[in-house]
């Protein structure tokens, strides 16, 4: 489904980036990094709205020729970015939303782990498996 999934810290450094192994990893790093421009802009536009009414899902950040980039931001300003192949038209907004929700839940589990320091890079087998399950569906 997704070709790249990333978790970005509040300070905009990557906590976790995982992309399909078949393609150039660096390219996805750049895609995710540049998409933060739009995320920042969307967050600052939202900043005026009340915090508790905020929609976490940011929607389509921007379409490139080959990929669509979606964003999601948690209340603690941790961002999730998902890159999806443009040709994959079967994926509707709702599915993307539920994928993000799953990701968020899994991320919350990591945060609950007493051995995890918030702000560290994520090394978690459970998270890997969950991310894999979202990416595997391509094939």
């Amino acid at each position, binding site marked *: 489904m997704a070709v790249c999934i990333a978790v970005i810290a509040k300070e905009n450094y990557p906590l976790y980036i995982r992309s399909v192994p078949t393609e150039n990893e660096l390219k996805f790093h750049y895609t995710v990094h540049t998409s933060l*421009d739009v995320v920042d802009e969307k967050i600052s536009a939202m900043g005026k709205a009340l915090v508790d009414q905020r929609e976490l899902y940011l929607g389509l950040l921007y379409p490139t020729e080959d990929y669509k980039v979606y964003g999601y931001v948690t209340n603690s300003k941790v961002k999730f970015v998902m890159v999806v192949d443009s040709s994959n038209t079967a994926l509707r907004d709702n599915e993307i939303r539920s994928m993000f929700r799953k990701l968020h839940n899994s991320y919350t589990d990591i945060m609950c782990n007493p051995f995890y320091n918030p702000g560290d890079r994520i090394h978690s087998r459970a998270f890997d498996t969950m991310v894999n399950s979202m990416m595997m569906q391509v094939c």
Partner: protein
Amino acid sequence: MTPPTHWDFPVELCCRPMAFVTLTGLDVVYNAVHRAVWDAFCANRRADRVPISFKVLPGDHEYPKCRTKRTSYEWYIPKGILKTGWMNKHLNLVPALVVVFYELDWDEPQWKEKQLECATRVEIVRQSLQGRNTKVAVVLIQKKTPLPPGEDVIASERAAALCNACDLSGKSLFVLPHTDHLVGYIIRLENAFYEHAQTYYYTEIRRVKSHKEFLNKTTHQLLFVRHQFKIAFFSELKQDTQNALKNYRTAYNLVHELRAHETNILEIKTMAGFINYKICRLCFQHNTPLDAIAQFRKHIDLCKKKIGSAELAFEHAAWMSKQFQAFGDLFDEAIKLGLTAIQTQNPGFYYQQAAYYAQERKQLASMLCNHDSSVTYPSPDPLETPTGVLDFYGQRPWRQGILSFDLSDPEKEKMGILSLQLKEKNVLHSELIITLLSNAVAQFKKYKCPRMKSHLMVQMGEEYYYAKDYAKALKLLDYVMCEYRSEGWWTLLTSILTTALKCSYLMAQLKDYITYSLELLGRASTLKEDQKSRIEKNLIKVLMNESPDPEPDCDTAAVKASQKLWADRVSLAGSNIFTIEVQDFIPFVQCKAKFLAPSFHVDVPVQFDVYLRADCPHPIRFSKLCISFNNQDYNQYCVVEEAYQKSDILEQSSQGTMCLVPGKTRKFSFKFVAKTEDVGKKIEITSVDLILGSESGRLIARKVPNISVQLRHEPPALTNEMYCLIVTVESHEETVAKDVKLTAGLKPGQDANLTQKTQVTLHGTDACDDSFPALLPDIPVGDLQPGEKLEKPIYIRCGTVGARMFLFYISYLINTVVEGKEILCRCHRDETVTIDTVFPFDVAVKFVSTKLEHLDRVFADIPFLLMTDILSASPWPITIVTSQLQLSASMTPVDQLESYVGNVVLQTGESASECFCLRCPPVTNASGVATGCYVISWKRSSPVESVPVVNTIITLPHVIVESIPLHVNADLPSFGRVRESLPVRYHLQNKTNLVQDVEVSVEPSDAFMFSGLKQIRLRILPGMQQEMLYNFYPLMAGYQQLPSLHVNLMRFPNFTNQLLRRFIPTNIFVKVRL
């Protein structure tokens, strides 16, 4: 070298088509009158003039011959879609109208001869236009001003005769008097020409359309496209852009219906590209950018996969790149004309994609065109055509007009492809890519995409690297590196550093090479161990003054050149000492320094430890470790040094003091005896220098404090308030700290405007003005006993919102007795704090009528209400002490302007409103009247009484004042009672200085009976008032509609009852009878 034209758009496609009109019979070189006429036509062609392109031609000019009309299409097989000359022909060669200028006055004595000459000239023009529908018009240049039409009998007779002789309709004969108003006449003339031209293009469209019925779908597919394109193009010439767009869209669909094959795919793509360009252009022109974007997306989706010949795949990439670039240009053009773009939809994306395809083109070209140097360019040149140009757009020069899908001559085809490939080899791809990337960078900069900008700059840097311009590459990469470093994207940083390292290697830039190596060896680098190991070995080589091994994947020729550079450098051995500050990045040696105790007695040696740890893959030896202090006298005691021996630099087993083993932390302990004159002073490690061969690392360690400074305040500060900040100084000294002085205020070195807008004072009870300083130096505080705490309130006034940095600096003298000697020394400690300033509240002001309806303008002399609304934006509660309305001279209050919001406390998000009844005398100024100011006196709600009150002045908006002819107001009780008489008095006041006829009528209401004048017509004198008395008699209880008063003004028909409703009540509450 001229680039192959099949993906560049021809100029005639990109220009705006304008009606083409030729002027004949003008001698613009020798005849001053003719020159003036011509100048009037060409000069000042602004947007308000009709779109015509004019050209002066001799009367006997030969226009392109018209082919004989085809009577049947049955045997006709078209050879291509669109001829290359066609657009230019209709833009610049075949006129819509030929104008014959001829000097002839109506009272010409030799009229007959002149008339004949004129007719001959017209005939010559007609001859050369044989077969075309081009219109002909005659303009007579006359010396005399003509009489009004119909008065000059001779003129109308002769005009008719001339028309007859020239076989012209009366509408095609014009007179141009050569008088003072030349430009005016010319504009009228060209408007008439424009109409003729439009008729011409209309008939052309009809003519092309009429061919359609003869065509059949099997053999004439190409003609469908051609004709549709022609219709659209003629519509554009006719300035009928809506129909042009419609026809281009049809043409676009028809192009994609054509049967595509490898042999004609280029032609189809070329035409699709042209038509798409036209459609997008027109969409932007019609201000429907979303349509343009949708069309472009569709175009790209349809054409993306139409690669055509695999051997010429780079052509497709070039074509794609051109499509994106052209669209980016169109988009950018539209923005310059007023369109607004957004962050996620701006021309940058198209330039970026164009650059991407240009990169792909480069790759494909390098794959497909890597012919051996022995392969020579084929002769005769297959790209040459007999005429030098192609007949049809998008065809191959070596097989023009051949429609068959089979290749008749495979050998020729091979030669053709080879020649194209060889030409492609000479294209400077990097230059194209960099241009597109820099276009994109400029756009993304505009639309707030800093990261996208950095990414594109990295790509530019890499492209410069491929283009072997290493200096430019390094400059760009070095510029963006810090962005990635500061955001902690190590993978990306490592990739950039790797390229930068290659550049610095190839240029033999020693310092850069070492810096990048150090960073690549550090913890943050994501390089694999073997790469790190290679880099470290190279670094050690460089430190030993040897040439490093080349970086992998570098151009072999460039490596050869750089090896020579390195050799030169090595032979120049000697003073290659570089100091590399490593605060900004993560180097491969981590360093920490620590004093063993917060303070040392002078009789005890000062002890501290320095910890070092290497992250590189191999153990590293250093030649010297030295520590620097704020007092440099101590530096000499803290040096670790060992003679440097080249031989055992990589010996793994070496465990000497001077070796750092990866992953192991080494501790170096130092001690020295402090000097007596430093008693009471701070000893500070300013840097740790690690010398590697000739390399040094540097870190700054902390100092040891002996008094503490604490700040207590409630941020953020509110604009203009006296913000209280309590500084607490606590002494940890063992003796009395004397002469304690405090310096407090804005930290110097910030924005100069801040200094003007920030004031600091010690006295918070009264507000300070602009004359106060932003920094208070050396405030005497007195003495401080050991362990004593001292509090000092400082008041700050910030006049503008934003963040400011404040500095608090404490200095004191201290007496210490060391070895029986008393020493007095001065110590200091500082603390900075950043304070945000925010607006305490937002004030909204609106004007409403006395019936609380919103007003966008007020009426002269009629009372209205001014409502103010203070919304607290402060995170702390604020108290509104009072408010005051200061009216400008043009406004008068109706009643007392007392404040209603005095002593109101506002929590965050709460608001306080009040309203004032005002009146404005009539004014002549239509643009608006100043209302005045609203002054709010407020303070932070705090238990401290002494907080001074802040006055915030808000300038009220201007209001438009309109005068009305008649003002009606009603005098009536506030309520009525059922079956009790209710007297109502209407006052009608004439506000004009005219006598006014007024028709007054009262419409009955179910709820009332009434007595009084039901309908009356009366006159009111200027400025006078008329009273109408009614006795209403309520019949029902409740909120009832009053009998409505209608007023009709004879002089002012637009004085409506709607307006009247604003002044008088429509309803009244009727109580039951007791």
